[in-house]
């Protein structure tokens, strides 16, 4: 039988998958907190919408506290960009984000820029600090 598939199948086409960027950042938080507070990314298989079949939730997690907090959801179509955020409204207010254009990223650079603002927001700093304090108090 003749093989009709392309002779070369590339595994990576174009920019990095947005979820790869999320997972990179998620992996870094535990190192900063002695793994007391970590971040995780979870694919939401049954929450996908037809026009945005890729959906992920980004969490801050504390295993000692048995607690998780969803900071945002990220959606995109078969093309990796644009991506769309579903974000904590406290952070939306803090960062003065208005309208869908502020909650979307058309490129890897824009995604990293928005992600940086979110992860360095006062809300996230406060939540992480509170989780660290509670976890350490319980450990005593």
């Amino acid at each position, binding site marked *: 039988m003749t093989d009709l598939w392309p002779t070369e199948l590339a595994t990576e086409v174009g920019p990095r998958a947005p979820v790869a960027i999320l997972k990179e950042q998620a992996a870094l938080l535990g190192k900063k907190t002695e793994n007391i507070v970590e971040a995780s990314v979870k694919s939401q298989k*049954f929450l996908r919408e037809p026009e945005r079949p890729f959906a992920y939730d980004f969490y801050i997690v504390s295993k000692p506290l048995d607690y998780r907090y969803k900071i945002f959801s990220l959606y995109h179509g078969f093309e990796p960009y644009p991506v769309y955020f579903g974000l904590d409204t406290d952070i939306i207010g803090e960062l003065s984000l208005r309208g869908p254009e502020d909650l979307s990223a058309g490129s890897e650079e824009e995604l990293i820029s928005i992600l940086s603002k979110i992860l360095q927001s006062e809300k996230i700093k406060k*939540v992480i600090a509170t989780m660290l304090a509670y976890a350490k108090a319980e450990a005593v």
Partner: protein
Amino acid sequence: MDLNEGKWLIMTAFLFWNVNSQPRSGMIANLAHRHEVDVIMLAECSISPALLLSELNSVETGYHYVEQLACEKIELYTKFPGDFIRPIYEEDRLTIRHLKLPGLLDILLAVVHFPSKLWWSDHSQALECPKLAASLEQAENMVGHSRTVLVGDLNMNPFEAGVVSANGLHGVMSRKIAEKGTRIVQGRQYQFFYNPMWSFMGDASPGPPGTFFCSGSEHVVFFWNLFDQVLIRPALLDRFSNMDLKILDSDGRTSFLSPRTGNPDANVASDHLPLVFNLGL
């Protein structure tokens, strides 16, 4: 009280109120004392914890302010230390607490303030409900049971698609149907919630005909809505009596309703009426 034949349960009283950012610390305290509330859940509350605690503990001490973690839209006050009602899952508008009182049945208490119809269409609200349902399931998987009660301002009526649909909250009006546990739709199993709020619709039900009043000039207007709801998982139904669920129109001293219209008076209390219910734990 004996809800289960041969088994004595400790009745735990819950109060939920969207106070519309009004300074109603006195009314909240009156409700808490009058109904011997153990868990107070407040939405749109901008009252300082110190002030509300002083009112709550004015008659007898015992109330605690439960420190918020990530969800800042729901305030909790309890008659026991916050360690017994720890958050296990939170989002922007949702806090899911593992209520574990010594010697009593542990449950999940999920308190939500869903996006308002002022900003979201009915369709958007319905599309968001599966995400809320998924969050509840995630928390249930974390604790290994589905003894969950969902309470809050859903900003939807019990008959709306997001509350009714299997992949949403799957809230049904009949306890007998909810007791079946789950239903399969398109090959996937979905847990029920029992939604006792259906029984509060209209004038023939006890108390006010809803929890929120809104009139309008378009064709379809319900006037009275049941936006504030309590939904109970089947695993907890033997701990819940419909007789113990009430929509309150007074704190025993002040009516929450306008004497002229009979509708919630936001100038006196709030645009929402509070709910109180008991669970036997």
